[in-house]
């Protein structure tokens, strides 16, 4: 056994060691095989098409069994007024492998006069299966997670030979992102090979034109396989014929349709593409159909559903524009993590708001305080001025008074003097008078 050893992340340094012994993990595939057989498999197939296109017959031919028999009549025997979605479960075993097969039929599709919205019950059914799976996956106590999701949808196109009908296009456009759609040309034994070729080309052209995403075969590393896949792709959409009867042709017992002009053999690849369909659907790509349903269609449904939940309570302040750019980062998280993120954003938003409000507050306070200071200063100034004024007046008055007092004092002094003089002269006179008398 050769063991290659390579450290991921290191440069391409391959160490090749030829060792005698073996390790044994090459048996892992066997272990997986064993376990899967023990578990058993399940597959859900949906068939859609107008009544009379041979859907039930094709299913019977595909699985070589009488899914619909006289005991369990298929939906084709019943007339429906509206589109129904009916399930039928069977358990089949082959080579030790057990398969729980569910066929979902859609009787009434396209049969009414007005077929607008006839796809709605189908879409609802697919979504309800996704919802069931999502709910059981999201439970706290998970036991078994039964997978009843639709893994594949066979869409039957009427063999008009011209092109797709508006109903076909509408249906496929609405369902191509929810389920693996495989379009089939039904009752292909009404078309000659050339007509069939034309028809196929036309259909594929229209499918591309309307950007319908039908189920694509995955690329593999294997050259051989890729070549086979390419051959199949060239034959899309597959033209099929189904039959419930076995006819003897050239001493072989084959399934086919007996006509006066010959037998159209179901499993003859020259007659129709039935074998290609069977091989692709059952023998090689059944697992891939399930994987694509799980990894792509279901995940789309889930992320849309959960994104809707988290944006449920969006307040009106968020502009619509904001939402769309946020989705890129949001989708990388779980709803709870996203709420955490929102909480953090809210905290920063609030902090910013707080800072802003704080700033405005400070500014206003400063203004007011400044105003007060100014008026205080003004007051002070005026008070000083007035005081000066008064003092000046005071001084003036003092001066006036002083001058006046001086004047008065002077005059009074003068008066006194005069008075004294007068007194003196009076007394003198008096004395004189007195003296004269003698």
């Amino acid at each position, binding site marked *: 056994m050769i063991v290659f050893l390579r450290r991921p992340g290191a440069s391409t340094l391959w160490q090749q060691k030829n060792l005698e012994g073996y390790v044994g993990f090459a048996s892992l595939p066997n272990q997986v095989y064993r376990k899967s057989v023990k578990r058993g498999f399940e597959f859900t197939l949906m068939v859609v098409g107008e009544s009379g296109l041979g859907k039930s017959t094709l299913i019977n031919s595909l699985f070589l069994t009488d899914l619909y028999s006289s005991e369990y009549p298929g939906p084709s025997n019943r007339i429906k007024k509206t589109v129904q979605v009916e399930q039928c479960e069977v358990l089949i075993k082959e080579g030790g492998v057990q398969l729980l097969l569910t066929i979902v039929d859609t009787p009434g599709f396209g049969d009414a006069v007005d077929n607008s919205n006839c796809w709605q019950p189908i879409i609802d059914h697919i979504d309800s299966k996704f919802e069931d799976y999502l709910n059981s996956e999201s439970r706290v106590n998970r036991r078994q997670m*039964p997978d009843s999701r639709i893994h594949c949808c066979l869409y039957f196109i009427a063999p008009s030979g011209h092109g797709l009908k508006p109903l076909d296009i509408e249906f496929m456009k609405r369902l191509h992102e929810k389920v693996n759609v495989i379009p089939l040309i039904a009752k292909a034994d009404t078309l000659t090979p050339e007509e069939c070729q034309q028809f196929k080309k036309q259909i594929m052209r229209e499918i591309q034109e309307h950007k319908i995403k039908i189920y694509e075969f995955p690329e593999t590393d294997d050259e051989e396989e890729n070549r086979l896949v390419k051959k199949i792709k060239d034959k899309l959409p597959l033209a099929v014929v189904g039959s419930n009867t076995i006819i003897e042709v050239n001493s072989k017992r084959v399934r086919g349709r007996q006509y006066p002009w010959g037998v159209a053999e179901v499993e003859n690849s020259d007659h129709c593409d039935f074998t290609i369909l069977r091989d692709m659907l059952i023998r090689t790509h059944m697992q891939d159909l399930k994987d694509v349903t799980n990894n792509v269609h279901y995940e789309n449904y889930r992320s849309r559903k959960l994104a809707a939940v988290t944006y449920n309570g969006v307040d009106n302040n968020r502009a619509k524009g904001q939402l769309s750019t946020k989705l890129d980062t949001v989708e990388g998280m779980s709803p709870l993590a996203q709420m955490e993120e929102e909480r953090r954003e*809210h905290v920063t938003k609030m902090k910013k708001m707080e800072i802003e409000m704080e700033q405005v507050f400070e500014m206003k306070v400063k203004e007011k305080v400044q105003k007060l200071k100014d008026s205080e200063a003004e007051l002070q100034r005026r*008070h000083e001025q007035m005081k000066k004024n008064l003092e000046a007046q005071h001084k003036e008055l003092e001066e006036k008074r002083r001058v006046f007092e001086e004047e008065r004092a002077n005059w009074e002094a003068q008066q006194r003097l005069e008075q004294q003089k007068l007194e003196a002269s009076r007394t003198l006179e008096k004395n004189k008078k007195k003296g004269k008398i003698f």
Partner: protein
Amino acid sequence: MASTDVARQPDKGARPLSLAGHVGFDSLPDQLVNKSIYQGFCFNILCIGETGIGKSTLMDTLFNTNFENFESSHFEPQVKLRAQTYDLQESNVRLRLTVVNTVGFGDQMNKQESYQPVVDYIDRQFESYLQEELKIKRSLHNYHDSRVHACLYFISPSGHSLKSLDLVTMKKLDSKVNIIPVIAKADTISKSELHKFKIKIMSELVSNGVQIYQFPLDDETVAKVNTTMNGHLPFAVVGSTEEVSVGNKMVKARQYPWGVVQVENENHCDFVKLREMLICVNMEDLREQTHTRHYELYRRCKLEEMGFKDTDPECKPVSLQQTYEAKRQEFLVELQKREDEMRQMFVQRVKEKEAELKEAERELQSRFEQLKRLHADEKAALEEKKRLLDDDQSSFSKRRAAAQLLQAQSLTANGKKDKDRKNSGFM
């Protein structure tokens, strides 16, 4: 990663049908296997054991290569875990193997917390997977699964019994990971001692309620070999990457003076059994058990911790959506409350500041009034003084005028007198 969907039991409506020919869905397991091979496999082993007990050597021996290891010292202050990932290939099968070794396990004086880093590591891997699973946009099929699938617990070959550290650690881990106990360095125990040792270990595990990994018995193809192997637990192993020539072959062995211990000789040790069970037969089952049992337990506990329930108080089933919505409501209410609180606080502050400023204004106003009054008083006083002065002045001028008048009068009187005198003098 292999598909993990569980087939449901057929409902009552599912009826068995017989097939008229070969349909071809018996290739389904092959389709599944091909896909798994294409994607590659992934396996994570955790080795717990004391320093120097032979963990790295055993890994090298098991996987036939030389993982880059280096010897660790005995003086690590704490138990650490070192994980290394390698891409291996055998024929067409690619395996991404992660080997996690404990560093410093059992070296500390106080080993009470020794198990904690290991438990934390295991939980971290679970958490990482859970986070991916809960994301809105997730890619589980591309996710590199780092959860620990198998835990090899290395028991010291004392020959007596398990150490209490062993019991404590294994008890903490048995609900989180598949524990496979191995007796390390088994070439130091004799056959009889080994037999007694194994019995003692198993009984101690049972009496302490430690759930080790049991090789599964539900698949008939391997039930028999698994039952036998379950009876040989714990495996006594010897590891060696050196080769010794025995007979005409080079075999992995340890050379002693008294003989050669051959790793792959089933008489010498249980290495081959371990390899068989761990890798060749049950690797896939170990992965499945980790995912469906240990991880689910972790997930359940974590979700319950976060407040998720499957049924609400009235025992009606609650969908995930309802729980998320309820949480979101709570969350929005909380945010709103915070906003309101902050606004309230601000309104309060504004009010307070306003009051302060008003108070200051009023003060200023009263001061202003006061000064005005002072002014008025002073002015009044001044006016009074002025008035006084005016009064004095006017009274003075009156006096003066009066005095002057008197003087003038007296002068004229005197003049008359003089005149009279003069006149009288003539007589």
